[in-house]
C-alpha cells in the first residue's frame, strides 16, 4: 500500500474515534431530578398552550425545535428541572413558580400517555 493512503487511513481512524465518543456522550448530564411537584394539570395545559406549544407542538405532540413530549415517560420533577435549568436550545426559566409546577404536572400527564 502506497504512502498516499496514509491521510485517508488516519483520517478514517479519527472519524471512528469521534463516532465512538459521540455514541458514548461522556459528559451528557444525567436525567434531571428534583423535588416532587404538585401542580394543577388543567391550568398547566393552558400555560403550556401559551408558552410551550410553539416549540413542542399542540398538546406536546412534537414540533420544531421542541421534541415530542407525549409518551416521553418524563415525570413532573424531571420536567420541572428542565424548565428551570433549560436544555439544548430551550432557555432556562421559560415559566416559573406555580406556572412551572402546573406545566410540569400537565406534561407528566401527557408523557405517560
Amino acid at each position, binding site marked *: 500500500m502506497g*504512502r*498516499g493512503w*496514509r*491521510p*485517508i487511513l*488516519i*483520517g*478514517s*481512524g*479519527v*472519524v471512528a474515534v*469521534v*463516532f465512538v*465518543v*459521540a*455514541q*458514548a*456522550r*461522556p*459528559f*451528557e*448530564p*444525567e436525567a434531571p431530578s428534583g423535588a416532587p411537584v404538585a401542580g394543577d394539570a388543567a391550568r398547566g395545559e393552558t400555560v403550556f398552550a401559551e408558552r410551550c406549544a410553539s416549540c413542542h407542538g399542540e398538546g406536546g405532540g412534537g414540533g*420544531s*425545535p421542541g*421534541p415530542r413530549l407525549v409518551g416521553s415517560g418524563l415525570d413532573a420533577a424531571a420536567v420541572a428541572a428542565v424548565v428551570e435549568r*433549560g436544555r*439544548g*436550545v430551550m*432557555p432556562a426559566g421559560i415559566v416559573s413558580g406555580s406556572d412551572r409546577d402546573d406545566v410540569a404536572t400537565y406534561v407528566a400527564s401527557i408523557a405517560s400517555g
Partner: protein
Amino acid sequence: MTLADVNETYTDLVTTVFSSTIAAKAWFATAAVALAVVQVTTAARIYGRLDFLPERGSAVAVVHRWSGRLAFLCTLPVFFHCVTILGWQTPDARVAAHSVFGTFVYGVFAAKVLVVRDRSLPGWALPAAGLTLASTLGLLWATSALWYFLNVRFGF
C-alpha cells in the same frame, strides 16, 4: 472533578459571555467558518489565483497558517458540546446530516494536515483536501448555526 462537574463548569464558563451554550456554539462555529473562508481565499492566492489580493509571499502564508490554527481552536468548544454532551443523534434529517458531517470533520482535518506535510502526493491532493474540509465545515455550519440563527434567535 466528576463528569457532571465538567459539564457544569463548561456551561458556567460560556454563559458568562453568551446567553446559552447553544448560542456560544453557534458563534464559535460561525467564527470557524469565517476563518475557513480566509483559509480558502489565502490558499487560492498562494496557488496564484485571486490576483486582486496582495502579491503571493510570506504574509499570505502567515495569514493562511494562523487562520487555520484559529479556526481549529474555535471548533474545540463546539466539539466538546456537540460530541461529548449531545452525541450522535438522528431525530430528523437536519440533525442526522449534522451528526454525519460532524463525525467526519476531524477526520477530514487530520487527512488535510497530513496531505500538507506529504510532498510526494500529487499537486491536486492538497487543494482537494482543503476544499473538502472547508465544504464539510460549511455544511456543518449550515445544519446548525445557520438553522439556529434563522429559527431560534440571532444574538449572543
